[in-house]
């Protein structure tokens, strides 16, 4: 069974003073991978500036716009058609020997190989006392512990838009218990990494149900590395495993590797930005 999604990304930027020169980079194109295929992309901006395709440092596709004439307001619109194959995220065997399971993650070879996704980055740094709130159970497999962690993060933070911003630390979030999907993903990654389980931050789109209308934002979840299995997606915001409803764009160590929009402007004064995302799904025969 496969599903077809129509994704629309919309951004509007309004500047206080005229912008003389600008460059934007969008990291919003769904990633081509097993079970996920991009069949159409369309991109436009209200000022008809030309755009080019490139990749970011980690190889994910980007769109770049170079503005060469003065402006005060610009609108971007992108749409993608994506085909996803329905998958059962639990479709793998659990190791038979749980107490030894985590030990296999502690060899030097393994740590070196997965070093980037075991790093404490500024956005995934958590005081040890905060990480200790989650109890890793030695009698369970790594996977089962990650499922527990998913639930723990889900219960730890109340989904509340507008409370946190890019510079809010994870410790503040754990103390105040409010945040958005980025914060859930960072917390999950920080704790998993403290136990030596490689974890990456994933940015993408979430399909929230057939016929779902209304504006939403880009979604964030995580992927943890399981020996003998590979990268498995966990969505702590919803306490589920990533499924065919998760349309991945990019991954990185944390949000700063995956920011959907980066802009370099030569202007003074402030600006207001608004984003919206719409995901429409349709079952295919």
């Amino acid at each position, binding site marked *: 069974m496969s599903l077809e999604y129509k994704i629309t990304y919309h951004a509007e930027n309004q500047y206080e003073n005229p912008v003389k020169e600008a460059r934007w980079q969008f990291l919003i194109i769904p990633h081509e991978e097993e079970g996920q295929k991009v069949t159409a992309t369309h991109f436009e901006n209200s000022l008809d500036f030309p755009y080019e395709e490139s990749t970011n440092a980690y190889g994910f596709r980007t769109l770049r716009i170079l503005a060469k004439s003065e402006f005060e307001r610009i609108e971007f619109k992108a749409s993608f058609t994506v085909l996803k194959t329905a998958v059962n995220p639990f479709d793998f065997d659990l190791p038979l020997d749980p107490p030894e399971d985590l030990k296999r993650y502690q060899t030097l070879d393994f740590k070196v190989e997965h070093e980037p996704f075991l790093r404490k980055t500024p956005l995934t740094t958590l005081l040890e006392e905060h990480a200790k709130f989650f109890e890793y159970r030695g009698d369970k497999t790594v996977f089962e512990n990650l499922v527990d962690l998913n639930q723990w993060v889900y219960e730890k933070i109340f989904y509340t838009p507008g409370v946190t911003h890019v510079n809010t630390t994870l410790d503040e979030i754990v103390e105040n218990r409010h945040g958005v999907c980025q914060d859930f993903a960072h917390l999950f990654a920080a704790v998993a990494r403290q136990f030596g389980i490689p974890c990456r931050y994933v940015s993408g789109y979430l399909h929230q149900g057939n016929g779902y209308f209304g504006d939403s934002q880009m979604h964030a979840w995580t992927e943890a590395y399981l020996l003998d299995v590979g990268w498995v997606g966990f969505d702590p915001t919803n306490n589920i495993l990533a499924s065919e409803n998760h349309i991945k764009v990019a991954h990185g160590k944390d949000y700063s*590797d995956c920011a959907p929009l980066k802009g370099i402007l030569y202007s003074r004064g402030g600006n207001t930005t608004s984003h919206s995302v719409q995901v429409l799904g349709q079952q295919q025969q």
Partner: protein
Amino acid sequence: MASQENTIFSSYQRDPSLFDELYDDKGEVKRIYKTLFNLYGAHSIEDYMRLNEKAKSSFFNQGITFQVYGDKDTQEKIFPFDLFPRIIDPEEWEVIEKGAIQRSRALNLFLWDIYHEKKILKQGIVPLELISSSENYLHQMMDVDPPGGIYNHISGTDIIKHKDGKYYVLEDNIRCPSGVSYVISNRTALKRALFGVFNHYEAHTVTNYAENLLDLLETVKPKGVDSPNTVVITPGMYNSAFYEHSYLAKTMGVELVEGRDLYVENDFVYMRTIKGPEKVDIIYRRIDDQFMDPLEFRADSALGVPGLFTAYKKGNVTLANAPGTGVADDKAVYTYMPEIIKYYLDETPILNNVHTYHCSRPEELAYVMDHIPELVVKPVDEAGGYGISIGNKLTKEEIETVKKQIKSNPRKYVAQPIMSLSVHPTYIDETNSFEQRHVDLRTFTILGKEREFVLKGGLTRVALRRGNLVVNSSQGGGSKDTWVLKQ
């Protein structure tokens, strides 16, 4: 002329506990300095004062100045120049040159490895923690092949002569080592002031640096480029080393640009010129990694070029030095240099390393805590002599402060025995006489594809304050012309 009656050096006081570059243990002037000593002795101190003033104004007039960060007084300063040159004989130089090349080659192989197979980390020879905790270990550089396989095109190796008469390396600077312009202007200034002395010695030229730099950079041009277009990128005129950036561009005959002079289109780099865009193939970069490309690194950087990193990653432009090179510039990595040289080259180090205690290791930390007065404590990630504490110069309270600092972040500090830098007769303004001052030597090594170049000379830096061991220009140091003699 008997040396003891030499007027200009008659007030020179030798501290026998120090290694003097001019005099041997018996108080005799060393062979290579004899002619120079006699030539200088023919001048009076008054001549000297006059020449010294002349040399100073020559630096100001040429605009060879620098600024000190964090200094309230933002006035530009000249890097004080001393008229009495340092001489290195050919045999000694050969050791330095071979040693510098050996280190640069080993560091290059190390960088390739930690950004590719990571064998040295997997075998536990260099601790993973040391590398992964470094901000300069760029995840973005994983599996990127720099053009020609070179990361550290330009290395500045800081070497000292200890009181045992042997050379020791203190630091390998492979981010954006500066100082080479001073080497050349020191030579020019000395020639202007005392042209005659050059008739008596055959010293290697230092003015061939720029042509060799350009030649070697061109050996690592991007694939498919015939005659590469090279530029020097600078953070701008407020950077402390701006004079050097402009000097290098001028002497290489290439453009000096700032970030906004360049732009990236379809992953190629272009320079805006009055005649329209011009493709750029090689960038000698004097901007730190984090400021290089606001799309990949610090987004608030106005110094860099948006999209530059992708252009680099795709092999469309050469960046010298390569991004991520700074991880091997870390003072904690320095301490593994003997192991690194052995591992990649299967050689023993030609130049000595100073023994280093890692505060990250509990037993070494304990030793450091108990022996602060005998040690130099350094933060691992600061350049320019900032944050260094010299144990025997500290008061009791200062020692406690240093201990606290180390305790709060042991990984950040290493400690070394206090090295006794050799001394060289240096003209001191305040006393109008020559006095012993500590010196070091920064050599400049360039790596190209299957070729290398070491500038025969280098920057001899002088700690101008009596007894001071820190020679960096930002800490009030001066410099001397340095002669490497021909065979």
